[in-house]
């Protein structure tokens, strides 16, 4: 089938033979795929365990803050290249002790690079394996891990290690609360 005009007779039949053989070969390959296992994961309903549990341990989903072991050192806020985390530390005038008044992460702006998780000394801020959180209103993606008016005393490494909540649970609660309240 070569379109060049000077086509020798041998080349002519060679083309036919090539075409026939390679088509047969191709058909054999595609027919053999009919007997192989399809690899589609039929998320979200036809899978045994929800996908969050099966993802590998280092997967970088949305960010989550375990405020019990957060020392309020603002390392994550400085490490983030695009200022996605903003923390307000307030000082109680008389008792001279600081507390965290606001800890917001803008999940819509976060690019999941993981630099904040590297910078955190105690591992308070960490990635969950949550990935499916599409919303119709972008403000729902503002995750605030310290409620309005709540005063969180920063954790000092000398204190006894409090028992930590499971990874992924905090993020999921905040997301659900956002979805219910904002829209």
């Amino acid at each position, binding site marked *: 089938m070569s379109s060049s005009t000077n086509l020798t007779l041998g080349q002519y039949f060679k083309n036919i033979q090539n075409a026939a053989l390679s088509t047969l070969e191709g058909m054999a390959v595609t027919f053999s795929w009919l007997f192989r296992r399809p690899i589609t994961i039929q998320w979200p309903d036809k899978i045994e365990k929800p996908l969050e549990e099966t993802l590998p341990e280092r997967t970088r989903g949305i960010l989550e803050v375990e405020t019990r072991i957060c020392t309020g050192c603002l390392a994550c806020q400085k490490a983030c290249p695009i200022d996605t985390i903003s923390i307000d530390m307030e000082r109680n005038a008389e008792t001279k002790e600081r507390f965290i008044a*606001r800890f917001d992460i803008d999940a819509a702006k976060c690019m999941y690079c993981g630099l904040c998780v590297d910078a955190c000394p105690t591992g308070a801020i960490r990635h969950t394996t949550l990935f499916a959180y599409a919303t119709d209103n972008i403000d729902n993606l503002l995750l605030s891990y310290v409620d309005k008016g709540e005063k969180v005393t920063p954790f000092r490494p000398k204190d006894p290690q409090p028992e930590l909540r499971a990874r992924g649970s905090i993020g999921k609660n905040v997301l659900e609360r956002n979805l219910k309240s904002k829209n």
Partner: protein
Amino acid sequence: MDVQSQINLIKGKFPNEVLENFATGTFVNAEKLKAICQFCRDNEELSMQVLTCMTAVDLGDHLELVYHLISYSKKHDLVLKVTLPRDNAVIDSVESVWKTADWQERECFDLFGVNFKNHPDLRRIMLPDDWQGHPLRKDYTPPTEYHGMSHTRKNPLIPEGQSATTENSNG
């Protein structure tokens, strides 16, 4: 063939064009750049077949054009630099020497405002044709809207009380 002997070779052919040099290459007079590039490519010992990258750097008071040349057969490379004034930076196009300069110079014109004489088709490559200003210059202030379409969003991280919207300058 190391950088110093390459510079001497060029100095031999263009005695007063080669200005002071630095570790990986040399500064060159702006008017003679095209001739030097032609020489670098055609000379057998140098045989710089490829212009890897041609870009500009804004050093505050003046612009600096940087030409990275490399030769695949001889496995050596050279850097030519040219200093240009900030306001009307004009230089000859080396498109006739290496065809790749066509698009690289168009990008340099688009982002830095350097004008290239007898370039076949000098128009903006990255930005829309009616864009004001050249973004990569240090004194460039990014506009907050284009044809009436604003491209800044109220930063939710700042509670209502404090300052108003901030541009997404580096977002």
